[in-house]
């Protein structure tokens, strides 16, 4: 399993710190998106692991774990699509 991930970032100090052309390492994240969120989704015990929320999350922040699913709150935007799509109402949106 791989995905773009957060890295430490320092603004280049020298010209040689910049990439050649406009070509830089793929999947290099330097900021989070969690500040956008007013509500956070919580997966509850009613979950039957049907994976619909995982599939339909536009940001791909719901991920599979050994015991079920978890959410990467660094990048969840709180859109609530997961809550709507869940056939078991197993996701509730909690005000931040």
């Amino acid at each position: 399993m791989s995905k773009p991930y957060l890295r430490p970032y320092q603004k280049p100090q020298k010209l040689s710190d910049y990439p050649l052309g406009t070509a830089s390492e793929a999947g290099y994240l330097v900021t989070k998106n969690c500040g956008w969120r007013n509500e956070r989704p919580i997966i509850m015990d009613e979950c039957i692991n049907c994976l619909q929320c995982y599939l339909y999350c536009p940001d791909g922040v719901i991920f599979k774990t050994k015991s079920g699913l978890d959410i990467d709150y660094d990048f969840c935007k709180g859109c609530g699509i997961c809550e709507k799509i869940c056939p078991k109402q197993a996701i509730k949106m909690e005000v931040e």
Partner: protein
Amino acid sequence: MSKQITAKTITDSEFFYGHKACAGCGGSLAVRIALKVLGEGAISVLPAGCMSAVGFNYPHLCFSNNSIISTFAGTASMLTGVEAGARAVGIKNFKAVGLAGDGGTADIGIQALSGAIDRNDDILYICYDNEAYMNTGIQKSGLTPFGAKTTTTPSGENIHGNIRPKKNLFEIVAAHNIPYAATASIGDLKDFMNKIEKASKIKGTTYIHVVAPCPIGWGIPVNETIEISRKMIDCGLWYLAEYENGQFKLNRTPRKFSSIKDYLLSQGRFKHLEDADIKILAAQRDAKWTTIRKNWNTTEEEL
């Protein structure tokens, strides 16, 4: 019949992540799912538009596969170059995939797209259709439907939004005798995923037109992106179909349409429509479905 791709079988890897699309953005879901199906061999080309704008802001780069922004008009021509270049330098097991908006595809990019299909270049072109130029602030494109209010087709006393019907790009593409074309919707990801899988295995140009609502431009709550996509199919204003071996085929045949009025009036962009406008849209829909039922293969088969 190859194994179907499902939420269970699709890779856990994410290729489009941490991007700055608005919450609930349909386009970002289409791009995310397409790249999950194609995997790390995908070389994606995205023209100017929302998906490139939200994914490539140096130093914050949101694609973990090889990806490049093309000029607005140049998605297909850059795909051609990427495909030829990759082959020329001996890269194997890659798929050049375009991920372009409706404006980038049906308007400014249609010439390059037509050229690529004409050459039958070995590329997959996916148009994520949110029915307007969203990145520049919701202006009318060739794929904006009749009646929709955009910032350049306001609704007032005299004109009720856009006065022209949506271009039928799926059939325009098919008219090139392309090896494979399909319509899809982010409201039905199983269908979308398996069409991508199928297209990626076909040699030559393939095209998928996926409806991907934009909550901002459509005037819907951010958690209703999927619901509205499904309503659009159910009311008959969109259809899931394929074109292959010179034949059109419907993947889902609705017995009865759900309310077109309900679909329209649940969106801000159609709020101003009067019954007469809705009648026009319903008549356009019915005319389309009459030709579909007459000329297309409508036996539902699994992909």
